[in-house]
């Protein structure tokens, strides 16, 4: 049962990941990072990929553009983007697609820009790689992009170097660079995690504004459920390398089906929270190499049954547009 069927978005989704499995290392030393991951992103939709460390959310996002480390191999599954399976696209053709159809921004603004190139040149390069435009047209486009992401006096700032920008400003430059060729999908891997909360608010506001203006679909990877709630329509929850729940954000946040999602939502400290104690999920996230047989959440699950420790539950639809990978969920109030 692939996750895609769960999405009743109009027409074929822009991006459809089916049964994606990625492992690191060779031979018997190989460690499965993510297994049987399925979800979809509709045109212009904002999907949140949420999970704690070791959940495989970054590996999933990097696999789409095939930017994984050399030691990683895609063992199975398909990544359909506008009808093309990116897993089978030859390596030499991937650069044409990166930055033009699908763009990506990363978590560490401090180290994601080339320290020896001016900000303007780095954005200009993103244009020049995909479009044959005159230097003047390209320069105009660079200034327009810088202005579009809220960087004041663009003409002068484009000559500055990354070390002359603050974290928030650099993230804006990254966004401008990603939008240079008007991609149809923007993958953002923890874009605001490294930023202070007031700067994060600015960047999130900017991303929402861009989505409205350009209709670019966003795949937002984050561990912060607050950011996901504010930015996305659909959420995909990952735990220990597998998708455990998908659905519309409003539904999942109101009453999550999977015990892990419920536990996670209850553990979040809330600004209006009155209680002193936080709900806590006992135990630890298993390391990728030491994942238990059966459901990975079983050791920490309050409602586990014998079957959970024997078999791995697949992601099954439990309500229109919603799914969970749990034998217990949905059968009665988990």
């Amino acid at each position: 049962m692939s996750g895609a069927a769960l999405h009743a978005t109009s027409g074929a989704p822009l991006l459809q990941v089916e049964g994606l499995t990625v492992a690191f290392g060779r031979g018997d030393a190989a460690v499965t990072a993510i297994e049987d991951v399925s979800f979809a992103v509709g045109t212009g939709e904002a999907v949140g990929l949420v999970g704690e460390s070791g959940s495989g959310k970054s590996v999933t996002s990097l696999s789409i553009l095939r930017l994984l480390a050399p030691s990683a191999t895609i063992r199975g599954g398909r990544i359909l983007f506008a009808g093309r399976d990116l897993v089978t696209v030859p390596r030499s053709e991937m650069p044409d697609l990166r930055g033009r159809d699908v763009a990506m921004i990363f978590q560490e603004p401090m180290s994601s820009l080339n320290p020896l190139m001016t900000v303007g040149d780095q954005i200009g390069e993103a244009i020049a790689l995909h479009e044959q435009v005159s230097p003047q047209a390209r320069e105009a486009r660079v200034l327009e992009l810088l202005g579009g992401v809220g960087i004041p006096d663009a003409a002068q700032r484009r000559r500055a170097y990354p070390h002359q920008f603050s974290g928030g400003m650099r993230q804006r430059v990254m966004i401008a660079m990603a939008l240079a060729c008007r991609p149809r999908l923007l993958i953002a891997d923890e874009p605001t995690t490294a930023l202070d909360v007031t700067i994060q608010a600015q960047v999130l506001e900017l991303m929402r504004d861009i989505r409205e203006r350009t209709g670019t679909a966003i795949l937002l990877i984050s561990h912060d459920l607050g950011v996901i709630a504010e930015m996305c329509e659909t959420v995909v929850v990952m735990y220990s390398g597998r998708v455990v729940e998908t659905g519309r954000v409003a539904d999942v946040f109101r009453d999550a089906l999977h015990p892990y999602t419920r536990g996670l939502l209850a553990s979040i400290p809330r600004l209006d929270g009155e209680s002193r104690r936080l709900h806590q999920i006992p135990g630890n996230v298993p390391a990728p190499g030491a994942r238990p047989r059966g459901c990975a959440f079983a050791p920490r699950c309050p409602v586990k049954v014998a079957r959970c420790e024997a078999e791995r539950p697949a992601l099954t639809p439990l309500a229109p547009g919603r799914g969970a990978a749990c034998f217990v969920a949905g059968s009665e109030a988990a």
Partner: protein
Amino acid sequence: MLRVVGARLLDAVPTVLLVLTLVFVALRLLPGDPALVVLGEYATQDQLALFRRQMGLDLPLWQQYLAFLKGMLTFDFGTSMVSQMPVSQLIRENLPYTIELTLVATGLGVVVGIPMGVVAAVNRGRWPDMGARIYSLVGYAIPDFYLGALLLIGFALNLGWFPINGGGSGFLDRMYHVILPAITLATLKSAFLGRLTRTSMLEVLGRDYVRTARAKGAREPRVIFRHGLRNALLPVATGLGLSLLATLSGSVAIELVFNRPGIGEVLISAIAKRDYPVIQAGVVIFAFFVVVVNLGVDLVYALVDPRIRVKA
């Protein structure tokens, strides 16, 4: 721009002074009395006294120091005690040979070493990387004078392709004489530069901005050269400065092996003959080179790396 260059030049002044002071102190710490050592135990007292006055050793220490500084900075190194020739003339005749050898050897080292390092880094783990590592390991181990001796015996003595000794006169002839010694030194320097470039390249290729370049749609060659190499070459520039100086000091031995004229040979024979003015001049010349090369590397860094050139 000028502000940065000016700052670096100002920075070099105290360094030069410190170096000269160290040299002055080192030579004055010589155990025993230089006059005795040069003239031998049988010299009479007044011969010793005459020698000391000639050499200005009888003046109070600070006067000697000032005279020493004035002499060094105006390149007036006094006269050789052995050949009575003005030292500066001795230097003028031999220095060009050393510079020629050092530049050609370093040039060859760069042309071979840096590309080798890049290829090894890009093909990490595959045969080019293994080959480069073995080449570097041998290059780090083999003594320069041994390699020189082997090349001399092999290509010069037995095969006669190259001259056995001398520095040659006239451009072509001097090049003909410098090839074998330069290759000897270049082999070692390319091993050093190759390994340095490889490490620096590997470190840079792991950086986030290289991944960003790929995410932008840049093809692999552009990622490696436009983004990777430019950042990797900065630390290599420092390494280049160091290898230039290492080649300079290596040339001392090579000049001996190939019987070439040069500052190294002058200094070594002066040490053997205890010819103090020449020793002093040789040491100062080498020290001067060190300061100039390091200043050069600093300037290159300041001009190339915007993080230094442009204040945040």
